[in-house]
């Protein structure tokens, strides 16, 4: 078992998973915010773009998007970033994960706006607040609070979905698990439990944090 642990180097794989998850979350939040703003804007062209993006991306498998990025854009068309292979893989992995989850983040943010009753906006207008002030003091605080729980759900799903990177050979936990089992078939269950615990270590604190945060900032209605 000591030999397996030494050879598998789960720490490096865990670090790769962590980087995929954190960078992917940052990318998905940024892109998702842009899409969400387009979706709720009063301009039909931007609404159309955001709606199309969400529909198309939500209905395609993450594996397909990742294959498209790595085998299509990187290997076939030669769109390379950085010099060494691991940087390139990380980059396209993060891009695919961000693009895929941005559609879910956008929907989560929009659902935050949708939780606000129309009366809130009407009341803000009625007391004479201009557009900017009503947005800042009445609408946005409630929208952000309403979106905390669904965004937390997406981030947890994103963390679990970093395993998809194994399909293109990025050396993260799932692919390391696979190679370790190939070498040590008799330790099958042990390796599985070890890797599963690694994911619980990542998702459990995230889940607890977002549950706590969404309770703390919940809007009483």
């Amino acid at each position: 078992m000591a030999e397996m642990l030494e050879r598998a180097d789960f720490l490096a794989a865990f670090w790769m998973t962590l980087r995929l998850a954190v960078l992917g979350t940052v990318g998905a939040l940024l892109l998702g915010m842009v899409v969400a703003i387009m979706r709720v804007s009063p301009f039909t062209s931007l609404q159309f773009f955001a709606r199309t993006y969400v529909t198309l991306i939500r209905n395609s498998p993450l594996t397909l998007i990742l294959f498209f990025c790595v085998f299509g854009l990187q290997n076939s068309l030669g769109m390379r970033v950085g010099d060494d292979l691991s940087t390139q893989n990380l980059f396209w992995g993060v891009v695919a994960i961000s693009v895929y989850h941005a559609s879910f983040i956008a929907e989560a943010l929009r659902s935050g706006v949708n939780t606000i009753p129309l009366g809130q906006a009407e009341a803000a207008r009625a007391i004479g607040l201009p557009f900017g002030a009503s947005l800042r003091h009445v609408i946005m605080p409630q929208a952000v609070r309403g979106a905390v729980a669904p965004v937390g759900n997406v981030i947890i799903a994103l963390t679990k979905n970093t395993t998809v990177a194994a399909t293109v050979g990025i050396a993260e936990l799932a692919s390391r698990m696979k190679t370790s089992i190939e070498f040590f078939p008799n330790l099958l269950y042990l390796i599985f439990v070890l890797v599963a615990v690694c994911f619980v270590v990542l998702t459990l604190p995230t889940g607890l944090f977002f549950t706590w945060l969404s309770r703390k900032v919940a809007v009483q209605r």
Partner: protein
Amino acid sequence: MSAQNVLFDHPGPSARQRNTIITVVGWLALLGLLGALAWGFRAEFTSAKLSPFLEAGTWQFYILPGLLATLQSAAISVVTSIVLGLLLGCGRLSPVRAVSNVCGVLVEVFRAIPVLLMMILWYYIGLYVLVLGREGSPLLGVVMGLTLYNASVIAELVRSGVHSLPRGQGEAGLAIGMTPGQVLTSIQLPQALTAMLPSLISQLVVILKDTALGSAILYVDLLKQLQDLATYRGNIIPAFVLGAIMYILLNSALTAVAHQVQRRLSRSQRGPRPGNPERAVEAAAVGVVAGRGADAD
């Protein structure tokens, strides 16, 4: 359009003019983006790279077998997920403390583990323990991975569906002398199933999409076949675009069915009012910690 109503006033003449200008600029930018994409990928959509899709052999040996394998694994997983999900959901609602605790723990564990890890585990169980060989093991891995995860999601749907019913439904059943089991199967479950039907159909989209993970354990599905075809004919971008179109069409059809069912249910007077499918999944996830986020998988 409710988001727009909350955020923006009814536009006046000058705002309407500004909106029109920005909308037109947006359309132009969108067209420009499409044009740039078409120009950037012009070398990938030549007749030489597209002609393989007009040959019968491509469809006969690559695309249709792949599609069949994808649909096959999805169909098996749907049936097993629903059966196991109902069992776990009912177990979780059981008045026997031990049964409900065991089912609760199982649901939490299956939700917290990434689907791909479960697939890899069962692939090697099939390979080393059950000795199913290189043919059966990938299918076992895909089906078990999808089943255990999606069954736990369906179990949560069942539980939240039953909990959303008025308490009087269960109490009335007990009052006329039914056992708790009879109350569950003949009063609560039929109503809960009706309410959760749209969310259940949305979950089918997740199953269909996640079959694509099978390529990691050598399951020869649509994606893998397209990749093989592209390696052979050197047309990787058109092949993946075709794959995306097929997945999007299949999943959009399922989503459309879910919306249709939802509309029909909210029109009928009997039974509880079902919610938005995505919302219901979120509602089902409330209070769960590690395994949340069913809606993004």
